[in-house]
């Protein structure tokens, strides 16, 4: 039986167990003086039976799936001729791969080593046996679980409490899953970064002022050593993000204030979705816009003013990125401003405050934690943005604060480092992970600061 088929059979079985449990509870209740004498509603007994049927069976099923391949491979390899078994590990891996391909029927060429064919046959028969065993075990478990519950259905079985407990555990499992995924991601990045820091000292990476990750492919090539100073790259990110925030925060906040406090209901109903569309435009399109429209305008204007503007500039990318994140700021701020209780506004109006005084001195301060949240979301969006920068700000890692020059950002460098024909364990490729790690740390710190700001603010005013 194929594992997928088996899986669906388990589900069907548990459905049947539900019916069985419910019916049984119904009968028990009826025969002993009415359903109201049951501890829980009959559906809970059904659920309990279904859970007892499905959960142990699925756990065994999952564990079996996880270890099956490894065990079968081990058995097959153990049966291979001595000569093959004594091969080095990497070669042995190739042989195993061949056997698996044979089993899957991916090798159609004529001459096949009889030893290999034998191994493949062995593999196949082991797999069939394993599947059969799995099916028997799992189905027995399922039936046993359902039967055990059915037998125990009495007036006093606390089915509702048991089911609630299982649900709680399910919720706990889901939330920890998210946490473990995060930890896993961090660990994998950390692992690769440590390999990078073995090749390039951490101090050079953190404080080096030159970024030019061109490693020689052969040792005798000229310029065989790259420079891995991350400062210019992070400076580029900071520069572009700053420009973007300078655009997005004032415009976004002002439009949020207009929409929530001044605009009529009808204008608001039209304008808010329109602004939100800005967030839905693909960043590649923003990239075109920045590179083909905004950058030339900036260069022309700059040259009129006698400035030297490179054709790819931080300013162009930052401006367009700012436009892109306006809706993050405006939409979230609009929501939090609307959430400020009308009573506070009334209080200010009642003292004779004008509309703008009320907004500036009462509404905005009250909404500040939420606004800070929106701005932070926008900052992390700006830091993570890649496409606009690739297209409009260039790849040159200049260490500059002049927004008219080309700069590059962390995410862009990560992309360019991972594209190409370098070996995966070369410092050039590993540098991408180090950059990623550092970026992660930076955004984490930003978030912590923001959390702190918001919390102290809340403490003060709640």
């Amino acid at each position, binding site marked *: 039986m194929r594992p997928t088929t088996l899986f669906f059979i388990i589900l069907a079985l548990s459905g049947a167990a539900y019916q069985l449990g419910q019916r049984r509870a119904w009968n028990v209740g009826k025969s002993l003086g009415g359903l109201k004498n049951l501890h829980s509603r009959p559906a809970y007994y059904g659920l309990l039976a279904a859970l007892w049927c499905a959960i142990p069976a699925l756990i065994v099923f999952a564990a079996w799936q996880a270890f099956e391949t490894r065990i079968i491979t081990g058995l097959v390899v153990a049966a291979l001729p001595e000569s093959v078994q004594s091969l080095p590990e990497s070669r042995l891996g190739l042989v195993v791969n061949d056997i698996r391909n044979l089993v899957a029927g991916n090798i159609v060429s004529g001459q096949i080593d009889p030893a290999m064919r034998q191994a493949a046959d062995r593999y196949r028969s082991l797999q069939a046996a394993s599947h059969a065993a799995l099916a028997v075990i799992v189905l027995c478990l399922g039936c046993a679980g359902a039967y055990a519950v059915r037998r125990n259905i009495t007036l006093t079985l606390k089915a509702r409490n048991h089911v609630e407990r299982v649900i709680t555990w399910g919720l706990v499992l889901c939330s920890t899953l998210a946490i473990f995924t995060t930890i896993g991601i961090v660990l994998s990045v950390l692992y690769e970064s440590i390999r990078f820091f073995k090749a390039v000292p951490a101090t050079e990476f953190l404080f080096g002022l030159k970024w030019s990750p061109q490693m020689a492919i052969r040792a005798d090539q000229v310029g065989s050593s790259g420079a891995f100073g991350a400062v210019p790259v992070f400076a580029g990110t900071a520069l572009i993000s700053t420009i973007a925030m300078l655009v997005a925060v004032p415009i976004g906040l002002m439009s949020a204030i207009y929409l929530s406090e001044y605009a009529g*209901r009808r204008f608001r109903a039209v304008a808010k979705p329109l602004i939100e569309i800005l967030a839905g435009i693909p960043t590649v399109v923003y990239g075109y816009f920045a590179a083909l429209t905004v950058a030339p305008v900036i260069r022309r204007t700059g040259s009129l003013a006698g400035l030297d503007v490179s054709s790819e500039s931080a300013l162009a990318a930052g401006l367009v990125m700012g436009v892109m994140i306006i809706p993050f700021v405006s939409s979230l701020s609009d929501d939090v401003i609307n959430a400020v*209780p009308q*009573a*506070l*506004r*009334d*209080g*200010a*109006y*009642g*003292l*004779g*405050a*004008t509309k703008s*005084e009320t907004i500036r*001195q*009462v509404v905005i*301060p*009250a909404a500040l934690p939420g606004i800070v949240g929106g701005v932070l979301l926008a900052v992390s969006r700006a830091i993570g943005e890649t496409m606009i920068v690739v297209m409009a700000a260039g790849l040159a890692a200049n260490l500059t604060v002049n927004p008219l020059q080309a700069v590059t950002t962390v995410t862009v460098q990560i992309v360019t480092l991972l594209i190409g024909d370098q070996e995966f364990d070369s410092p050039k490729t590993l540098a991408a992970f180090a950059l990623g790690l550092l970026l992660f740390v930076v955004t984490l710190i930003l978030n912590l600061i923001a959390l702190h700001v918001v919390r102290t603010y809340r403490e*003060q*005013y*709640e």
Partner: protein
Amino acid sequence: MIAIKNINPPPATPHPHSRLGSREDFRTIGEAVVANPKIRCRHVDVFYGPKQAIFDVSLDIGNKEVIAMIGPSGCGKSTFLRCLNRMNDTIEGCRVSGDITLDGQNIYDEKQDVVPLRAQVGIVFQKPNPFPKSIWDNVAYGPKIHGLAETKSELEGIVETSLQKAGLWEEVKDRLHQPGTGLSGGQQQRLCIARTIAVSPEVILMDEPCSALDPIATAKIEDLIDELRTQYSIAIVTHSMQQAARVSQRTAYFHLGYLIEVGQTQQIFTTPRHRLTEDYITGRFG
């Protein structure tokens, strides 16, 4: 109450199940007019969009008196109160017609600026609504926006006297820079009163100022109202008849948007003249 539910506008012929029904029954009886009024309202109608909430109310608020407004909920007490300092301007679709004058000056005049009007006619709301700022900032806010203090020490003086008048000074003088929202409900309401007093109003409107408070806090506010009466004209909306009887000199009874009866508080509670007033104060509906 059930019998007279759907008489808005009242039918011309009496309803079979109703003792009341003709328009005559909704004409104000009692002394709505006083000599030398602080605020004088004549033929005030208020509409929320197409729906009329106040019907032809004429009422005077005298100098340095406490007038209580009572009536079943939804009868338009808050709506009427909010007309007196044009708080209804902030509600979309709300329209006020008729004459309301403060010291003889029409407050709905084109030339009337709401900023000084609201400084003259302060308002305290049902739910305490201190700003999420420190106690000090809450009280100093009004004087600051109206430019009432030229120096820091003058402002300090205003804050202190306002808090003293509101009977809160002793309780908060050591923590003026802690958030006003951290006070208890009764303290918050007194803070809101202090905040209103700080801009030296002449009239104070109070919309059920004690309905969110416990009996002890309520008693404090009532004492406070008694003291404030010597300096301010006060209009207080309340759903508690005992409170109206305790704090006010005159009482106005509202019903379904009509002003039914006005008179000396004692007279209203001992010998009401209108059937509806009597029903309400004897607790037949409310």
